[in-house]
């Protein structure tokens, strides 16, 4: 009786709100002591008190999958269904970061797409540390903006499958959302102007070396402020993607210059950028050779990550990647997306790739027994050593 949803509650995404959590996780929560003792008869107000006592977030942990208090409170919120105003209050409050995350999580589960982006994106600017309980039971360090990023890009978090939201740029093109304006934008523009001035000065003065260490002091301060470089760059990469799309007609040249400069500095971080919409932008860029390589690497990585259930699809993907492999298996067809091999740039890269592939073959993917070769391919895609 205590586990039934409030009869006045609306259905979320076409189902009883509690069904957003899977059956097994739900049962674990219902059997949990925290749920039975603390979460009994909670209302929206008393829920706030409980939320303020939270000190970590997470899903289920341990061998027998015990739920964390965080996820019990998420369940409670789904059960009582607080008003949107209350949830927005949770998100907007600055003092208690776990209350914020709780609100954001609930909003992600139950809100409409526009609401999700509208309320969660300001939290990108929050860099506070969070404690996260991993599924092994130990704690790991994370930050508010990392969690928000995970909520907005991944489809599974804290042992709950998140409802699908469309990609941001889809919503931008349909005009539902404004293009994202990041807090870092002003800093970029400042830096851009300073670089232009530097270049002008360099043209005038021959001995003046282009000193990229001479970055603006605001930028250095900014770097100290940010905790983790990788996540800062990820954020910046995302901004760059939006910026490139947005002023398409008017300021295209300016943005191209800006992007070219940024490319030089952040090429190495680009490889780590795994977002889908980054790939579309790649095609627009000028440096085709490098882009193609990166494109291929990103796409390949994306392909491997996609859960390919059927083995034949795995095999086909590998064939697309490896020219030798294709010849050996006599599969003549190439996918339409395959770049033409007459291009000089890509030929050089193909040679490079062949060398890489040759090393990879010592992985065992060319084993005479097709079953074992198949298994080794799967293992390589998961990042495991080949079979012995």
């Amino acid at each position: 009786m205590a586990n039934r949803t409030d009869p006045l509650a609306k259905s979320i995404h076409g189902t009883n709100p509690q069904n957003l959590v899977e059956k097994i996780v739900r049962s674990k929560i219902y059997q949990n002591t925290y749920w039975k003792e603390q979460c009994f008869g909670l209302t929206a107000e008393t829920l706030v008190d409980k939320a303020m006592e939270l000190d970590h977030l997470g899903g289920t942990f341990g061998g027998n999958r015990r739920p964390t208090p965080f996820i019990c409170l998420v369940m409670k919120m789904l059960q009582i269904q607080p008003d949107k105003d209350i949830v927005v209050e949770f998100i907007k409050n600055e003092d208690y970061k776990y209350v914020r995350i709780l609100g954001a999580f609930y909003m992600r589960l139950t809100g409409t797409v526009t609401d999700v982006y509208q309320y969660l994106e300001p939290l990108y600017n929050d860099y506070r540390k969070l404690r996260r309980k991993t599924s092994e039971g130990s704690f790991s360090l994370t930050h508010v903006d990392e969690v928000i990023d995970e909520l907005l890009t991944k489809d599974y978090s804290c042992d709950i499958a998140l409802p699908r939201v469309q990609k941001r740029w889809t919503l931008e093109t349909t005009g539902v959302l404004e293009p994202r304006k990041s807090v870092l934008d002003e800093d970029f523009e400042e830096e851009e102007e300073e670089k232009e001035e530097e270049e002008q000065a360099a043209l005038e003065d021959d001995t003046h070396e282009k000193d990229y260490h001479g970055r603006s002091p605001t930028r250095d301060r900014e770097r100290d402020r940010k905790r983790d470089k990788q996540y800062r760059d990820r954020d910046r990469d995302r901004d760059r993607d939006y910026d490139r799309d947005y002023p398409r007609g008017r300021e295209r040249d300016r943005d191209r210059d800006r992007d070219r400069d940024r490319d030089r500095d952040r090429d190495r971080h680009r490889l780590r950028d795994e977002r889908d919409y980054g790939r579309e932008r790649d095609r627009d860029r000028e440096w085709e050779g490098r882009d193609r390589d990166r494109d291929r690497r990103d796409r390949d990585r994306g392909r491997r990550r996609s859960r390919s259930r059927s083995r034949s699809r795995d095999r086909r993907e590998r064939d697309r990647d490896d020219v030798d492999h294709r010849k050996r298996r006599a599969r003549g067809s190439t996918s339409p997306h395959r770049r033409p091999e007459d291009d000089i740039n890509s030929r050089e890269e193909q040679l490079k790739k062949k060398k890489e592939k040759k090393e990879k073959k010592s992985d065992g993917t060319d084993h005479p027994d097709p079953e074992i070769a198949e298994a080794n391919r799967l293992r390589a895609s998961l990042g495991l050593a080949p079979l012995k």
Partner: protein
Amino acid sequence: MIEVVLNDRLGKKVRVKCNEDDTIGDLKKLAAAQTGTRADKIRIQKWYNIYKDHITLKDYEIHDGMGLELYYN
């Protein structure tokens, strides 16, 4: 290389080829690729002994052809 059989007694019986020095976590990933569930949803047991992710098959003395129970989290 050994082959382990994972059976959930509800119709899913999976034969997974793996090395002896693979961990249980790796075995779960391989099983997930074959069954189609997520790796973190799988629990491998042997009669109330829940096998932990970071321990190798060799340490659990799992041999070729051995059957393990497949449960879900």
